[in-house]
C-alpha cells in the first residue's frame, strides 16, 4: 500500500509460558530433564491414568512465588487449581490442570528502559502438555514433557511497538533466569510466547479486534510475526475489511501467519475447580522468607552501578545482563579505587574470551574475580601502569595464573619518587637542546624529556608525574 492517511498504533499483550527448573514434575516424582528417550520420564499420574491422584510439588509454589516477587507482583493468600478441558492427544487426561479463578500471583510489572511499565495481569502455575510429532499423517505422542511445571505470565495489552515487545521478552527472560527459576531457553521450548496483537487508529481509545499468534519460540520470530500481522491488519482495515478474532500460527519459512483453527472449534474450556487438589494457602512467613532471599534484581543493580560507581549505563547493562557477570564484577571491585576500571577490563578484555551469549551466561573465566581484583589494586597503588596491567591481564587469561606471576619486583620498583627524580635529572642533563627549546617557549619539547624518562624506566614511570617533575627542575 502507498502512503496511509491514518496512522495505526500497535497494541499487544503477551502470554508467556516458562518451564520451571524444579527437579520433578508438578504432580508426580518423574524427572523434568529435557530430552530423554520417548516416554521414559512418565508414570501413571503424568500419563493421566484413571484412579491416579496428583500431589502438588511444593517447590513449584516456591518458584512461582519467586517469579512473582521478581516482577513486583502480589502473592495471593489463597490459590486454587482448576481444570481446563480440551480434547487433544498432547493431554492424556483431556484436561490440563491450571489456574483460572484464583491464581498464585496477581499484578506486577516489567519496567522497560524508557521507564514505561508493562503491567502484568497475573501469573499462574500449570502443567505442560506432551510433545506431538506429526509424521506420515499420524501423530506420535511423547509424554516426557507432560506434567513439567510451567508458569504462565499474562501481561496487560500495554505493549505499543515491536521494540517494546522484544525488550519485554528479554527483560522477562533476564529476570527469571536471574532468580534461578528457569533457564528460559526459547530454542528448547522452556520459554514460549503467545502474542496478542491488534491495531487502532492513533489517538483512538477503543482497542481493535485482536488476533493471537501461538507458540513463538524466538525473539526474532516474534518481531517478524508482529510486523507481518500489524501490516496484515492495517491493510485489511484500510481496504474496508474487518479483523476477525482468531488464533494464528506463524510460518518461519514464509514469514506469514495463518489461521490455526476454524470457528466451530472456538475454544470452550469449561473450566472448573480441580477436585483432586486442595487449596493452597500461602503462609506469609514463607513469602517473607523468600523475599529476604531474593538477590538484588538486574534493574536495581544497573541503577546502583550507574549512580554509585559512575559506570556508563551501556556498560552497566552489559554487566547486569547475566547474574554471573554481575556477581563476578561485585567480587572483583572489592576495595578498589575505581569500579569503572574493573568494568573496563571485563568488558574490554574478558568479554573477548567469552563471545557467545551462552558462555557469557555461565561466565566461567580463567581469571578469578580475586585475581582481577589483585591486578586492579596493583594499578591503583601506582605500582604498575595501565599498559602493563592490560598486557598482564591477557597473560592471566591465557594461563589462569595470577598477576604476580608476570610482574616482577623490578617491574614494580624504580618508579618511587627518588628513582623518578634521578631519571628526570638524567633526562634533563642528557638533552640540553630540548631543555633550551622548552625554556624558549616550545612547550612540546618537554615530550622528548618525558619520553627519555619512560624509555629509561622501561615504561614503568608515570608520565604525568615525570612531566611535573621535569617542569620543576627546568622551569
Amino acid at each position, binding site marked *: 500500500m502507498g502512503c496511509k492517511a491514518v496512522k495505526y498504533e500497535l497494541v499487544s499483550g503477551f502470554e508467556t509460558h516458562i518451564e520451571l527448573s*524444579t*527437579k*520433578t514434575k508438578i504432580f*508426580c*516424582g*518423574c*524427572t523434568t530433564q529435557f530430552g530423554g*528417550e*520417548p*516416554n*521414559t*520420564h*512418565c*508414570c*501413571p499420574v503424568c*500419563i493421566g*491414568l484413571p484412579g491416579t491422584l496428583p*500431589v*502438588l*510439588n*511444593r*517447590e*513449584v*509454589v516456591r518458584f512461582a512465588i519467586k517469579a512473582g516477587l521478581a516482577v513486583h507482583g502480589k502473592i495471593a493468600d489463597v490459590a*486454587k487449581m482448576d481444570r481446563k*478441558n*480440551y*480434547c487433544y*492427544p498432547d493431554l492424556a487426561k*483431556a484436561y490440563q490442570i491450571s489456574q483460572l479463578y484464583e491464581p498464585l500471583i496477581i499484578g506486577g510489572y516489567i519496567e522497560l528502559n524508557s521507564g514505561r511499565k508493562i503491567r502484568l495481569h497475573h501469573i499462574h502455575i500449570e502443567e505442560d502438555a506432551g510433545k506431538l*510429532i506429526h509424521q506420515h*499423517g*499420524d*501423530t*506420535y*505422542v*511423547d*509424554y516426557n514433557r507432560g506434567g513439567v511445571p510451567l508458569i504462565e505470565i499474562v501481561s496487560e495489552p500495554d505493549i505499543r511497538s515491536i521494540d517494546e515487545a522484544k525488550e519485554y521478552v528479554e527483560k522477562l527472560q533476564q529476570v527469571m533466569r536471574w532468580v534461578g527459576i528457569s533457564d528460559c531457553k526459547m530454542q528448547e521450548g522452556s520459554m514460549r510466547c503467545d502474542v496478542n496483537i491488534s491495531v487502532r487508529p492513533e489517538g483512538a481509545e477503543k482497542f481493535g479486534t485482536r488476533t493471537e499468534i501461538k507458540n513463538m519460540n524466538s525473539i526474532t520470530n516474534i518481531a517478524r510475526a508482529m510486523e507481518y500481522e500489524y501490516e496484515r491488519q492495517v491493510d485489511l482495515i484500510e481496504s474496508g475489511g474487518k479483523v476477525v478474532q482468531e488464533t494464528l500460527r506463524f510460518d518461519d519459512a514464509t514469514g506469514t501467519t495463518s489461521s490455526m483453527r476454524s470457528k*466451530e*472449534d472456538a475454544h*470452550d474450556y*469449561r473450566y472448573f*475447580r480441580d477436585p483432586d*487438589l*486442595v*487449596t*493452597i*494457602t500461602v503462609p506469609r512467613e514463607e513469602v517473607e522468607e523468600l523475599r529476604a532471599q531474593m538477590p538484588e534484581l538486574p534493574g536495581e543493580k544497573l541503577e546502583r552501578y550507574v549512580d554509585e560507581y559512575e559506570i556508563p549505563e551501556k556498560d552497566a547493562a552489559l554487566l547486569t545482563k547475566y547474574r554471573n557477570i554481575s556477581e563476578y564484577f561485585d567480587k572483583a571491585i572489592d576495595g578498589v579505587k575505581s569500579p569503572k576500571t574493573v568494568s573496563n577490563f571485563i568488558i574490554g578484555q574478558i568479554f573477548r574470551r567469552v563471545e557467545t551469549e551462552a558462555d557469557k551466561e555461565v561466565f566461567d573465566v580463567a581469571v578469578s574475580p580475586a585475581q582481577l581484583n589483585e591486578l586492579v589494586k596493583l594499578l591503583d597503588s601506582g605500582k604498575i601502569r595501565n599498559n602493563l596491567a592490560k598486557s598482564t591481564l591477557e597473560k592471566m587469561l591465557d594461563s589462569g595464573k595470577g598477576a604476580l606471576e608476570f610482574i616482577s619486583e623490578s617491574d614494580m620498583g624504580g618508579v618511587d619518587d627518588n628513582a623518578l627524580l634521578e631519571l628526570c635529572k638524567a633526562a634533563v642533563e642528557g638533552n640540553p637542546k630540548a631543555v633550551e627549546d622548552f625554556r624558549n617557549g616550545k612547550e612540546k619539547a618537554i615530550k622528548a624529556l618525558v619520553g627519555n624518562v619512560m624509555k629509561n624506566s622501561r615504561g614503568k614511570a608515570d608520565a604525568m608525574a615525570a612531566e611535573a617533575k621535569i617542569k620543576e627542575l627546568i622551569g
Partner: protein
Amino acid sequence: MVTREDVENIALLSKLFVPEDELDGLTKSMQEIIDFADAINNAPSSDVGFDNINNLSNVFREDEVVPSYPVAEILKNAPEQAEDHFLVRNRE
C-alpha cells in the same frame, strides 16, 4: 434446559460422532443427569460451601525424583504404539 445444540456442541468438543437419530435420546438423558446433579444445589450448604469440604490445604510433595516407569509399562494400555510413542491415527 439442555438443548439438542448443547449435545451437539459437547460431542464436538469431545471429538465424538453422534448419529442424528441418537440426539433426542441423548438430550433427554443429559437433562436427567443435570437434574440429578442439581439435587446438590438444594442441599443445605455450610459456610465454606462444597469447595473444600475436608478443610484441607497445602498438601504437597517434596521435589524429589522417583524412578519413572519402564516405557513398556507406560505404553501397555495404548491402543496403538510405534517407536516407543503413543500412536494416534489420523481418522480423516
